[in-house]
């Protein structure tokens, strides 16, 4: 028997019907007959394949991956809304699910009636819901509107109600799917705060989101789903890093440096042939080949994997046809240990067009200290390492 708040999936597979072809009465009845007798039809595709996860109580896990990778299907299986085609799923305790925005919100009922309805769906008694009722109304900022029919709510109000109900009814396991995508910045921040609070109370959190920063800020573990298969699982930073790298690698193939100027090779080294290290200088050597006279600005940036760099430096180039080597000496890098990507691009000043499109040219693994941990639900914009000294005096 697992403790309350555990989430476990053993060898979970999920199959969906392939393409909805024309379905006549005969096809339908055949399909039903097949289902009843347990002999499934032939046309199908696997949405999830052999998923094994084991989340202990109180842990927070982020599910990331491209669209159609099976994240939402996995979450639906965890809520027991969907049954897995094969394998077993165990979720212990009360489950609060926030799948799409308005989980379980009924438009014809008032906000108050919805709170009670959702409470009983989660297995709470009326008295238990009544205890938390004021908190929910306060969080959702509904006040008098709580006795209005939900269909007359604005979409923001509906979402606040949905989130408030799911997060305040103190589930043992909270499953959240893409809710932070909607709502204004202030509300998103309050949702993150509330999730942190819920986590502090020992609730297990499974969060599905495309917002990698939010996942990184809220979850300690990450699971990367790719075409229904777990590609990576572990500490959230590593998993997100791997995911970003794969996305970049994919984009890389699509980029073709063509035209008058191209980068033939790029190397990033530490000073004096030593390994690249954080808070030490870095030398980037770029070999260029020009087929005509070029004048433009060379931009060079370092990123965690995406095309969004942490910083950018630039240099004015005047090149004759032929091969050239550009060496860039970066001063002490304020970056923690990890893998970084060096991006480069050349922009023609005359008509502002890309001579060389912005693309990754090489990567570098920095050695050295890591970052201090951030509190849960505090989102850091870029990994900048700043040395700090501390003093504590009694005054």
């Amino acid at each position: 028997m697992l403790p309350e708040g555990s989430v476990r999936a053993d060898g979970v597979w999920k199959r969906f019907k392939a393409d909805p072809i024309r379905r006549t009465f005969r096809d339908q009845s055949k399909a039903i007959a097949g289902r009843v007798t347990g002999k499934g039809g032939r046309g199908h595709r696997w949405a999830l394949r052999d998923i094994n996860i084991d989340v202990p109580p109180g842990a927070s896990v982020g599910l990331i991956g491209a669209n159609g990778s099976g994240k939402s299907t996995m979450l639906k299986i965890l809520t027991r809304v969907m049954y897995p085609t094969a394998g077993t799923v165990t979720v212990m305790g009360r489950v609060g699910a926030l799948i799409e925005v308005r989980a379980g919100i009924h438009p014809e009922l008032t906000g108050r009636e919805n709170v009670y309805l959702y409470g009983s769906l989660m297995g709470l008694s009326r008295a238990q819901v009544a205890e938390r009722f004021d908190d929910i109304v306060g969080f959702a900022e509904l006040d008098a509107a709580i006795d209005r029919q939900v269909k007359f709510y604005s979409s923001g109000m509906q979402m606040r109600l949905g989130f408030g109900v799911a997060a305040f009814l103190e589930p043992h396991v909270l499953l959240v799917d893409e809710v932070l995508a909607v709502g204004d910045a202030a509300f998103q921040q309050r949702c993150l705060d509330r999730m942190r609070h819920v986590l502090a109370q020992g609730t297990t959190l499974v969060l599905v989101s495309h917002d990698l920063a939010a996942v990184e800020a809220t979850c300690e573990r990450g699971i990367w789903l790719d075409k229904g298969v777990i590609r990576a699982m572990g500490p959230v930073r590593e998993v997100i890093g791997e995911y970003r790298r794969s996305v970049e690698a994919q984009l890389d193939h699509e980029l073709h440096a063509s035209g008058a100027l191209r980068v033939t090779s790029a190397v990033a080294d530490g000073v004096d042939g030593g390994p690249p290290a954080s808070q030490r200088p870095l030398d980037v050597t770029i070999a260029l080949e020009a087929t005509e006279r070029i004048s433009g600005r060379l931009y060079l940036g370092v990123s965690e994997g995406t095309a969004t760099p942490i910083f950018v430096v630039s240099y004015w180039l005047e090149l004759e046809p032929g091969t050239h080597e550009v060496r860039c000496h970066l001063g002490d890098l304020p970056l923690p240990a990890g893998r970084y990507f060096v991006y480069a691009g050349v922009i023609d000043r005359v008509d502002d067009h890309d001579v060389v499109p912005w693309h990754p040219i090489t990567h570098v693994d920095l050695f050295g200290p890591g970052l201090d941990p951030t509190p849960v639900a505090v989102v850091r914009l870029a990994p900048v390492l700043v040395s700090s000294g501390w003093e504590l005096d009694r005054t």
Partner: protein
Amino acid sequence: MEAFVAGPDAASRVIPNEPPAGSYFKPKLHLISSVREVWRARVLVRTLAERDVRVRYKQTVLGFAWAILMPLVLMVVFTVFVKRFAKVDAGNQDVPYAVFAYLGLLPWGFFSTTFAAGGLSLVANTALLNKVYCPREIFPMASMGVASVDLSIGGVVLAFLFAVTGTVPHWQGLVWLIPELFVMLAFSLGITLLVAASVVYLRDIRQTIPLFLQFGLFATPVAYSLNGITGPQRDLYALVNPLVATIDGLRQSLLFGHHVQVSTFVFGLVGALTYLLVGYAVFKKLEPGIADVA
């Protein structure tokens, strides 16, 4: 925390094309455990039924008066058209036809409300079905809760009718009331479960529901009495349509003061329980795939 770390070997493991043969999910029919699960979710059935009752009369002027009006209108229609014009009577008994018809209309109304709303309850509640887990049979059951509210209101109207027409209900009727209503409940729930789950897969059934209800109104002794049918035929009738046992039993005992025909009741009971078991089994069998197609 350690158990969670499956990182390195998760990536390197080779995943087969199909899950191992033994691991396929098979829906199992555990009668006792599913009944227990429904019992645990009884608050939910109540909440859902309450919701449906409220939603039904929201933004209406007459509100709950509609629950009284519908059977009353049917009763008047029956009294005028069936009794006056078609000369159908209350089975040679010296009782007001209005009360006679109303005793048939109440169980029929219960059944048709449960069936019409409950049969579509899964399709109508896909928003909930796809987001929150609960035993799915509570949706048809909640529809039955709504029908029960109507039935209770109808019961008050019935008492009123008894008083107005000066008819005295017989005491045996009260003894038989519970078993007769049980037959009605079991039959209504069984058929509704069967239809509710099937409709999700085969939406054509939805179109047949009004047709089935019209047919049922004639195939059930609502407007007419059972006097013309006797012996094994009558028992068979009750077996196929257990509402026969309920309606006839209520009239015999409550209105006429006769003894209830035990064989008709037993056949009705057996029929109703069979409908319930078959309906529940089919429902449970179809339940796992509902979220995939709903």
